[in-house]
């Protein structure tokens, strides 16, 4: 006979057990990040990494005896490692909330067109030199950002005409995705060879040449989004657990929640994609793995998928830049090689009921 208190205890335990892992996983991620920073053409020690970061922040790297190595660590590797984690976190939490507001587990920043729109903007800058800052990387980034936002507005406008239902967002997103991809292909088709390879490299998604400024910007945007999503995590539970009519009867305004959550997830995606290029798979796979571990409760799912995304992208990028060093393979390629088998494996296992 199960008693009232048994149930209460189990309910508390379930939540606590999963919540307690969040800080532990973050700690493991930090340690892994330090380890990954050590790796590269010049291998270094953890102590060197930590002291390079401290000296870099203090601004006295130049005075150090091994200033060349410390500079490599502080100016090249650390921002790159941080960006890998932040991009993984940002794309994954954006994917999670997008899936929730559209009630569709197949949705990610990639599938509803945001990423391909950013790719189009970047291609325009690279191939035609058309941007606010022609010929600079800032030009590429700003173009990518602007067209991601335009895409989001288009998706919003079309789905608004179609009543802002989950289906309408997904449908218009998919349609727009095809349009932007076609436009990008057209541009690549007519581009000359030099520019083509630059444009293509960008569509692979790569963390080459990431700077501290970019890291800080992504950190701020992703940080704000995490806070906003967590504040609204219970509302997201209501929204994703049933139809809009039921959400309304529980005091939620589904359209308003969709728009506000959508704005933050699009901004996060746009900022990341405009610096790092198109990294496709992560926004789909991280929420899935998260759901297999903690279920659908967004209070746990959002942090979990963020952390999983951070792990996956950090590992992918580290493999990409060390496996056949000094050549680096773009992270967008590695994540698919790493993520797809993992994903398929997990899905098969969970369907067999082994998870």
């Amino acid at each position, binding site marked *: 006979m199960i008693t009232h208190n048994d149930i209460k205890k189990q*309910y508390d335990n379930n939540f606590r057990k999963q919540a307690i892992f969040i800080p532990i996983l973050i700690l493991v991620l930090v340690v892994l990040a330090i380890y990954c920073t050590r790796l590269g053409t010049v291998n270094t020690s953890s102590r060197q990494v930590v002291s390079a970061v401290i000296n870099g922040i203090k601004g006295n790297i130049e005075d150090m005896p091994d200033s060349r190595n410390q500079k490599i660590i502080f100016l090249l590797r650390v921002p790159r490692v941080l960006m890998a984690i932040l991009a993984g976190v940002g794309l994954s939490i954006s994917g999670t909330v997008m899936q929730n507001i559209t009630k569709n587990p197949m949705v990610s920043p990639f599938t509803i067109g945001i990423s391909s729109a950013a790719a189009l903007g970047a291609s325009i800058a690279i191939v035609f030199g058309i941007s606010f800052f022609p010929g600079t990387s800032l030009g590429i980034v700003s173009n990518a950002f602007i067209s991601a936002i335009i895409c989001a507005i288009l998706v919003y406008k079309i789905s608004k005409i179609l009543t802002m239902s989950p289906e309408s967002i997904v449908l218009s997103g998919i349609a727009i995705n095809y349009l932007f991809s076609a436009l990008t292909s057209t541009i690549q088709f007519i581009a000359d060879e030099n520019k083509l390879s630059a444009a293509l490299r960008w569509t692979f998604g790569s963390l080459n040449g990431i700077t501290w400024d970019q890291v800080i910007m992504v950190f701020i945007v992703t940080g704000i989004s995490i806070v906003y999503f967590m504040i609204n995590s219970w509302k997201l539970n209501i929204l994703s*657990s049933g139809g809009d009519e039921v959400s309304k*009867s529980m*005091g939620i*305004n589904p359209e308003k929640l969709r728009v506000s959550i959508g704005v933050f997830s699009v901004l996060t995606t746009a900022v990341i994609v405009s610096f790092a290029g198109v990294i496709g798979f992560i926004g789909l796979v991280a929420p899935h793995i998260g759901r297999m571990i903690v279920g659908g*409760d967004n209070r746990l799912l959002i942090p979990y998928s963020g952390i999983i995304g951070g792990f996956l992208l950090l590992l992918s990028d580290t493999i990409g830049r060390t496996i056949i060093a000094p050549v680096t393979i773009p992270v967008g390629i590695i994540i698919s090689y790493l993520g797809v088998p993992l994903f398929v494996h997990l899905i098969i296992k969970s369907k067999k009921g082994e998870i």
Partner: protein
Amino acid sequence: MLEVNDLCFSYKNKTVLTDINIGIKNSEIVCLLGSNGAGKTTLLKCINNILKPSSGSVLIEGRDTNTYSRKELARIFSYVPQSYNTTFPITVMDMVMLGRSFNIKFRVSEEDKDIVIKILGDMNLIDLAFKDINELSGGERQRVLIAKAIAQESKILLLDEPTSSLDMKNQLDVLNTIEKLSREKDITIIMSIHDLNLALMYGDKFIMVKDSKIYDIGDMEKVVNVENIKNVYEIETIIREVEDYNRVLLKKHARD
């Protein structure tokens, strides 16, 4: 006191409700009767303002529901839809806990847990508390949704065919729980229901809907009689009193 005044509703250009007038006293159990497509579901949704009536009004204690915010309305009405599907995994207890949302921003209080577990017990759901709702049978899921609506602790419970997929024991258990709730906590129940015998056992007031209008409204004797049933459902019946309740017996359709 709930009043529906001259309410009309249409989907695009299809009129589904015309000139609906209803008065319902607090803690009454009201049964909405009528054939498929008569407009019962639509009427329930208009009452709690999920659908905006094209004209007319719904008043709660004399105040128009349009002047309430969604949050306030959620404290007055809870609603169980006729059908429901979920995409993402969620346990039975988490689902019922969503009913407590008016009290939860992020953290679930001890009181919320106690109330939810008590309701799980009433609805025969204790053994399923940590099961994923997507892995339940239709009847089990229906009980979860009713439990969630009860957890909302609103003054008026709107139930769209609450017993449609339940076995006979659960039909009685669920309706007993609802009746008890109504008697003990003065909660008004408005439910659409196709089983006339269950309606007769639990209802205080009956509304028959036909062709987008109210065909008849009132107590058992006035509404649920052989003639009304023939006009609304197009079937022949016999009504007999057995053990304190009127029972509706169906006659088989004559073969042509």
